[in-house]
């Protein structure tokens, strides 16, 4: 992280004529013509497209537009456009066209895009009818891909901070909380706890020593990048949500706890805080009232467990990120013992629309008990992968086959993994299920933070269970025994299955152990660690049996090579403790 490195002005490249086509102060700045804009090229500058070269594309396109002499074309920097598998992406909103893989092999050439921008015949493809976009409903991602993530003015121009203004000037804190309660908004970080109730608890807690709001941006689930995208695409919306929350609960200090693995998100967030302070939306005397909120960014250092709220608080306070028993809950005793409200990125990003459009807006979308929308990172074996936002209650099948475009030709659907290491795998039979908190939980998985990984017949479910157990084993904080040792023991058993050396007794052992770890671990990481085992056993027991009884991996993924723990060492030679017979036959 080197905040500020892009703040330095750069001399415009030779040959550029800033006066005529527009002004370009810095290489990361947009190209804005002085006259009216006929078309704009919105170039995705979120991490996915940038890793495919969209930052270079952005610079090149600006130069080319300037060189073409066009004076009515803007080149703008926007956040995530969603369809990450087709990056780098450029959208021309005036024409409703999307250009895919711009500048990449087999994609749109820069010349083609430029021709489309300056000429009369729009290229690319129509966005409106594309099923990837048509089934989506955007609340959290409303401005993602539309506003400049590094410009508070752009956010304000799109209606940003109207909700905060309404809250602090026209509503009492209790009215704000009541509105959130009525909206039915539930935590988007995983557990789905009603957001309004949490706010009310913190609001009611005595807070002589001050109160805090904390945004959990420690998005740790492998295969999940919703929060990163939101922070990279529209950090102001998250800050606005935090400010409304702080007003409602009576907090004047806040932290965003973000992953070190997301340098771009951290940079944009820090820049957004500085800009919001300068524009009077954060800091002292917000929007001319006496309400104040000071937000700092705290950067995580690579520990999944810090997504657990008490561990996150320990980490913000500079310590080892180990969870502590609750109660007391952070709502009554959080940071430095003060009442602390913790919500995740997507939850906060939902708040402005609840306030500005009223609770009915959110309550009108979704199912009876799961209101609103949910952002998912759709990845894995589907044709189209990326960031999507859908109304709660959409069928899983619609997400996989309509939005995701189904599987590659010749591949067979096997499962969708949701909820990360605490989640589960949903099989083909359940594809028609509604995607909401309750239904996912009944199916043995969880909503989680929004990772959705589609697996085809080349994935082995025993191997997948082992993968998640390996994850939990490495990420266990080590404080409580069942998680620290139980995950190691379960990993060993799963590893034996993948090598074809496990017995039926060990399969039973695994189930027993999983139940024990779930019931006795201190925090959610340990309690949830057995979930991938339970759900794969529930739906894919035949794969386990193939591994254990027939020593065969149906997907052809596992080594099945008889190690570790080959039961009988070769006769004659002294064993050297090297590999082959490392553990006994029956264990």
């Amino acid at each position, binding site marked *: *992280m*080197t905040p500020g490195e892009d703040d330095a002005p750069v001399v415009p490249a030779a040959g550029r004529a800033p006066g005529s086509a527009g002004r370009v102060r810095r290489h990361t700045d947009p190209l804005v013509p002085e006259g009216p804009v006929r078309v704009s090229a919105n170039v995705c500058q979120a*991490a*996915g497209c940038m*890793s*495919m070269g969209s930052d270079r594309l952005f610079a090149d396109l600006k130069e080319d537009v300037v060189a073409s002499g066009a004076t009515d074309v803007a080149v703008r920097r926007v956040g995530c456009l969603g369809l*990450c*598998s087709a*990056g780098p992406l450029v959208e021309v909103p005036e024409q409703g066209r999307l250009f895919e893989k711009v500048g990449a092999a087999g994609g749109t050439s820069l010349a083609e895009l430029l021709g489309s921008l300056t000429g009369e015949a729009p290229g690319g493809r129509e966005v409106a009818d594309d099923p990837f976009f048509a089934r989506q409903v955007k609340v959290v991602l409303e401005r993602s891909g539309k506003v400049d993530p590094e410009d508070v003015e752009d956010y304000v121009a799109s209606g940003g901070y109207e909700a905060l203004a309404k809250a602090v000037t026209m509503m009492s804190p209790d009215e704000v909380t009541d509105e959130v309660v009525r909206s039915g908004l539930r935590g988007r970080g995983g557990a789905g706890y009603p957001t309004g109730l949490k706010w009310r608890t913190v609001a009611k807690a005595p807070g002589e*020593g001050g109160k805090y709001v904390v945004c959990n941006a420690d*998005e*740790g*689930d*492998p*295969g*999940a*990048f919703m929060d*990163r*995208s939101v922070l990279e695409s529209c950090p102001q919306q998250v800050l606005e949500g935090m400010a409304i929350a702080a007003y409602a609960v009576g907090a004047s200090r806040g932290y965003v706890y973000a992953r*070190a*693995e*997301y340098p771009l998100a951290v940079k944009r967030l820090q820049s957004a805080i500085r800009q919001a302070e300068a524009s009077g939306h954060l800091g002292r005397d917000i929007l001319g009232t006496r309400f104040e909120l000071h937000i700092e960014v*705290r*950067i*995580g*250092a*690579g*520990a*999944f467990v810090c997504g657990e709220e008490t561990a996150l608080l320990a*980490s*913000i*306070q*500079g*310590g*080892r*990120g180990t969870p502590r028993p609750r109660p007391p809950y952070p709502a009554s005793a959080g940071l*430095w013992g003060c009442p602390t409200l913790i919500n995740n990125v997507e939850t906060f990003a939902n708040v402005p629309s609840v306030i500005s459009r009223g609770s009915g807006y959110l309550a009108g979308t979704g199912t009876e008990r799961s209101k609103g929308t949910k952002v998912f*990172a759709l*990845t*894995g*074996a589907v044709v189209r*992968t*990326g960031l999507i936002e859908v109304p709660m209650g959409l069928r899983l099948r619609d997400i996989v086959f309509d939005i995701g475009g189904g599987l590659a030709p010749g591949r067979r659907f096997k499962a969708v*993994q949701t909820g*990360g290491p605490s989640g589960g795998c949903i099989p083909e039979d359940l594809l028609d299920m509604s995607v909401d908190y309750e239904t996912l939980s009944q199916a043995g998985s969880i909503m989680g933070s929004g*990772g959705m*990984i589609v*697996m085809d017949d*080349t*994935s082995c479910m025993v191997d*997948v269970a082992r*993968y998640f157990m390996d*994850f939990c084993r490495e*990420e266990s*904080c080590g404080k409580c025994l069942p998680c620290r040792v139980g995950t190691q023991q379960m990993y060993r058993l799963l590893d034996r299955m993948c090598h074809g050396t496990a017995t039926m007794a060990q399969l039973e052992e695994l189930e027993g152990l999983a139940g024990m770890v779930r019931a006795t671990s201190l925090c959610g990481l340990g309690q949830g660690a057995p979930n991938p085992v339970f759900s794969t056993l529930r739906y894919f027991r035949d794969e386990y049996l193939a591994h254990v009884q027939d020593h065969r991996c149906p997907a052809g993924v596992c080594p099945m090579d008889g190690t570790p723990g080959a039961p009988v060492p070769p006769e004659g030679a002294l064993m050297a403790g090297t590999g082959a017979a490392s553990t006994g036959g029956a264990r």
Partner: protein
Amino acid sequence: MAPTTAAARQAPSDDKRWRQVDVRMRRLGYRPDGLIEVLHTTQEVFGYLDDDALRYVGESLGVPPSTVYGVATFYSHFSLKPQGRHTCVVCTGTACYINGAGQLLEEVGRRLGVAPGGTTADGRISVLKARCLGACSMAPAVVVDGEVHGKVRPDALMAVLGTL
């Protein structure tokens, strides 16, 4: 609020880079709860955290050495050993895993003789694994010296590493 218990001290050496660490600590008011932030800065400046750095930061912030060490070893982002001149970060997120991240690590391990977290004997390349880079659409993804490579096959990765 935790009390401020410590203040500026003599840096372990006259290396000018300590000033950046000092500035960070001063901005945080030498508060013990700034420990992780200061460790971040120290690692950015020096590349890793050695005993002198840990001791100095601990003394300056009023945090006992065992606590500093406990924190520095808890988080996988912090390194107590010097890193190689180049870094190769293999993403092991779910999407990358089911698309062959394991084979990438195996190949790198076999060809370079390093396990994840290790550095080649000549100090050339450090191999790390990342939990999830969020580049799931490009799975399996590898970041070599800050540059993201998507849909990487073992041979292609070795070719990239060979050019370093």
